[in-house]
């Protein structure tokens, strides 16, 4: 594989070749300089400098990054929607009345009107967040478990296990995401949340493995690991306590962005008719339902499209902000 391909989840992968969707909104040298001068002032005044670990440093610069704060707040609202949709709407999305079919906003006190079946559009949008967030978190969580465990093992031990894993990832990279998912899901009569998630995990764990493997290789010969070895620490302890904490940053950045990619993939599959099926509520299904009314009622397509795109965007911005904050080079 050449290193110039963007990752299949639509998320950019940081490679030396420079595929990365690098800083979208540059925080500029200003932010970093502020920190530096602040530190200089503190030390100059004889005050004690707080211990600056990578994470506390990152958190301090993130708090001041408006892009990060905005994306995080947006995702907080979406997460609330997913967990407590009742907070946002009092209308049951499944309480449909066909006499209201395709009525516009304002009819019967409805905020955004009704869909073809006469179900309230706004409450469907709100309840749609649940599926998207659940699948995003499930798939990326599952891929993280597989990718981190296997990546740490193949990076740390190398040898035949590493070669084997490399070949296996090559093979899985050979299956494009949507095509592979179609093949897998084609088999199920009515795929549900679990089947869709498993299909996407099966096709999405490889990038995390590769990222982690390469960062494990880059730190495993460093002095502190040698020191831990010399002190007689077990392999398990060295990997979990010494190596992993120093390797997780790029993986977490990728995982954040990948959640957006997974959400888009789920919507695409549901739209194609191979993912979730009615009566499940999903933005992809809503868009699919509006497809025959592009000319007359673009609202039916545009509303779920907007919320879907904004959600994906929020995850990408969050990941990019994390990358800027965690990358020591940008300091």
């Amino acid at each position, binding site marked *: *594989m*050449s*290193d*110039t*391909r*963007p990752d299949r989840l*639509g998320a*950019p992968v940081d490679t030396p*070749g*420079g*595929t*990365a*969707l*690098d*800083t*979208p*909104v*540059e925080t500029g040298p200003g932010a970093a300089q502020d920190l530096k001068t602040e530190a200089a002032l503190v030390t100059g005044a004889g005050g004690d400098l707080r211990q600056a670990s990578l994470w506390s440093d990152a958190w301090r610069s993130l708090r001041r990054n408006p892009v990060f704060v905005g994306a995080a707040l947006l995702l907080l609202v979406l997460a609330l929607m997913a967990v407590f949709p009742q907070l946002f709407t009092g209308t049951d999305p499944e309480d449909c009345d066909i006499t209201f079919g395709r009525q516009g906003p304002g009819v019967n006190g409805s905020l955004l009107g009704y869909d073809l079946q006469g179900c309230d559009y706004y409450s469907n949008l709100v309840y749609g967040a649940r599926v998207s967030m659940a699948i995003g978190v499930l798939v990326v969580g599952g891929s993280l478990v597989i990718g981190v465990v296997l990546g740490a093992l193949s990076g740390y031990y190398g040898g035949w296990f590493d070669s084997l894993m490399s*070949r296996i990832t*090559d*093979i899985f990279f*050979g*299956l*494009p995401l*949507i*095509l*592979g998912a*179609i*093949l*897998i899901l*084609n*088999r*199920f*009569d009515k795929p549900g949340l679990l089947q869709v998630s498993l299909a996407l995990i099966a096709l999405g764990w490889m990038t995390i493995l590769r990222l982690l493997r390469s960062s494990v290789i880059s730190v495993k010969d460093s002095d502190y690991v040698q020191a831990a070895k010399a002190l007689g620490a077990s392999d398990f302890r060295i990997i979990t306590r010494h190596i992993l904490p120093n390797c997780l940053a790029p993986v977490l950045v990728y995982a954040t962005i990948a959640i*957006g990619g997974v959400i*888009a993939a789920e*919507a*695409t599959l549901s*739209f*194609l*008719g*191979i993912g979730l099926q009615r009566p499940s509520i999903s933005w992809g299904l809503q*868009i699919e339902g509006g*497809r025959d009314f*592009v*000319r007359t009622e*673009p609202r039916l*397509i*545009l509303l779920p*499209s907007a919320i*879907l*795109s*904004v959600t*994906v*965007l929020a995850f*990408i*911005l969050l990941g*990019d902000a994390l990358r800027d904050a965690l990358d020591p080079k940008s300091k």
Partner: protein
Amino acid sequence: MGRYVARRLLLAIPVLIVTTILIYLAVFALPGDPIAQLAGERSFSPAVAAQLREEYSLNDPLWQRYLAYMGGVVQGDFGTDFRGRPLSDIMQQRFPVTLKLALVALVFEAVIGLVAGILAGIRKGSFFDNLVLVSTIAVVSIPSFVLGFVAQIVFGVQLGIFPISGQNDGLRSFLLPGFVLGSLSLAYVARLTRTSLSESLSSDYVRTARAKGLPERAVVGKHALRNSLIPVVTFLGTDLGTLMSGAIVTEGIFNLPGLGQLVFQAVRGRESEVVVGVVTLFVLIYIVFNLLVDVLYAALDPRIRHE
């Protein structure tokens, strides 16, 4: 060079075999009864079911069925659709449409992506550079089927500039779907060109070129650009395979009678044989393109093959 190509080709064979096995397993070995699926709501009588099992050799062991299927695929036989038409005929008829769409998309991403990337890369931090950064991130976050509908609504319905669907207007009817299909990669090409070019611009050999007094045009055009285009060219190569499979969504929305639309309709009509046949073809195309690009990469960049 020859040795590198030979090694790369040899490595590709097991990948190809295992990938097709995976495809086959995903399709035929997962739980679920294809005959029951074929029947739909009402189940077949046991006699009919048994006959169908015999007809589709579902009683044979899995490896035998795999070999039989792949044997067919290698000879261009992908099975038949529900009406008994050989899939290979249908594919042959629809392939040109998909290829045309993918090529239009490739032209879009190459031309617009490269120009935007070069302009942004030359003046990093300028207004245009920031515009490219912001707009590419917006494009990346919009799923392509959403972009397809938005383009249809804005340019087809409201402005009426482009035909909404079908291919009756010749090349013009391919412009809108081509742009939608290529938009994601367009963003990557722009970003990739920008990063790669600005990296070359700060390298030693560019400083040397400037120091010996070459005009800026020659420095950028001859020295920096040529080197920084290597990853972009290889990306464009791989992307042709990706674009063809991305056509499933775009052709479905814009009603273009290509291979993607065939999958789109087959998924809805639950015609598994068609879905599997076409998707297998897409995956094979994708793998072959990746392989070609790896070879191309080695041809363009000597550092790769000397590893």
